[in-house]
């Protein structure tokens, strides 16, 4: 990159980044000023509070989403999946491979159309099916959008619990599925690939572009993710804001409170046919929690919505026989339910 462009890039970052942090820090007073002074809205009215909540959350989440996406983009630029594959096949890891696979499932941006090539890629490299599953389970559950939404709406503790449990779920689920020797239920053509798999020692071609030259593309990608989900974020928060103001307290508690043992399985089963992305679902979940639903039940619901979807099942059909899809989904469902109980018990 030319010197001048480089300088301009660094200068832009040096100005924009602190500006974002400042905006984030003073967001509440700013939004208050906007809604109650500039707009003719009264504090302590449903409408005023709903609109205040809407602007505050939308701006906060856009900032978080942009920063987290860029951060994850950085990790990915230096540790792409191709490298993970080499890493997983060439090193002896005594069980830690489940953690690495699951962890990278969490940091890589997930696109459902990428899941099949990734799956095949892993099988091709001779990575055991269980480790591949660990990646596949965590990848849709924990992603930059979910993390940003959680951070913005629930705070960092709940985010850590959410991300940690998503990784744990992938590890345990992958490990157990790996023990079942399920390779025979793969599609025939995938089995063939598996037999011909070779341990590629080091086919990962290192892109030798310097850091500063990659930065614009990473930032552009981060912004691209924000643009892609912005509409869902706005719709989700708008629904959340509306519900906040108008749905009575303990409306949901009647069905989903802690003392009802069937609450978690019910939440999970209700979630499976729903196909929503994290951006749209988290604001609604937050209202659930505010209205008295325990966090564990809410997290279980959210995981089931993003992790178990019918469109994904039809995609996976290309590489697995129905029986394996059933086992895969069944295992995840059971683990999500167990996690839900565990959380409600801990918190």
């Amino acid at each position, binding site marked *: 990159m030319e010197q001048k462009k480089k300088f301009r890039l660094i200068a832009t970052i040096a100005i924009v980044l602190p500006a974002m942090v400042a905006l984030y820090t003073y967001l509440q007073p700013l939004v208050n000023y906007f809604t109650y002074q500039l707009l003719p809205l009264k504090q302590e009215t449903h409408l005023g509070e709903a609109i205040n909540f809407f602007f505050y959350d939308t701006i906060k989440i856009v900032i978080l989403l942009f920063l987290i996406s860029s951060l994850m983009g950085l990790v990915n630029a230096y540790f*792409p*999946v*191709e490298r993970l*594959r080499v890493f997983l096949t060439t090193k002896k890891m005594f069980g830690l491979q489940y953690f690495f696979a699951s962890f990278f499932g969490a940091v890589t941006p997930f*696109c*459902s*159309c*990428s899941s*099949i*090539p*990734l799956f*095949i*890629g*892993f099988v*091709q490299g001779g990575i055991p099916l269980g480790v591949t599953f660990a990646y596949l389970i965590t990848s849709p559950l924990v992603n930059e959008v979910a993390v940003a939404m959680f951070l913005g709406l629930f705070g960092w503790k709940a985010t850590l619990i959410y991300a940690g449990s998503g990784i744990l779920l992938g590890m345990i689920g992958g490990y157990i599925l790996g023990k079942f020797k399920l390779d025979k239920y793969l599609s025939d*053509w995938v089995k063939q*690939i598996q037999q011909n798999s070779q341990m590629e020692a080091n*086919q990962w071609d290192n892109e030798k572009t310097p850091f500063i030259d990659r930065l614009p*593309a990473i930032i*552009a*990608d981060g912004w*691209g993710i924000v643009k892609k989900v912005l509409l869902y974020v706005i719709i989700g928060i708008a629904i959340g804001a509306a519900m906040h103001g108008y749905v009575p307290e303990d409306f949901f508690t009647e069905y989903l409170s802690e003392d009802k043992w069937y609450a978690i399985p019910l939440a999970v089963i209700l979630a499976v046919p729903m196909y929503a992305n994290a951006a749209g679902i988290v604001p609604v979940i937050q209202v659930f929690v505010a209205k008295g639903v325990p966090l564990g039940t809410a997290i279980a619901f959210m995981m089931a919505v993003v992790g178990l979807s019918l469109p994904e099942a039809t995609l996976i059909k*290309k590489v697995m026989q129905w029986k394996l899809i059933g086992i895969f989904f069944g295992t995840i469902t059971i683990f999500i339910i167990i996690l839900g109980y565990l959380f409600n018990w801990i918190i």
Partner: protein
Amino acid sequence: MEIKVLGTGCTKCKTLEDITRKAVEEKGVDATVEKVEDIMQIMTYGVMTTPALVIDGKVAIKGRVPSIDEIKDLL
């Protein structure tokens, strides 16, 4: 020149196809652009993240949508 856009049909893959065609047109190079959607064929290129751009049998870009200028440089 033979250009192939690999992708299972998500929005990103379509974007890549569109800007590749545009880049070819604007640069005025003699090239065919073909979209490969069949997963088995995609895998023969050893690509794990879609979309990907293959130029004359070599994988040039994978897992992201580049800018139009970047594609022009590659051509």
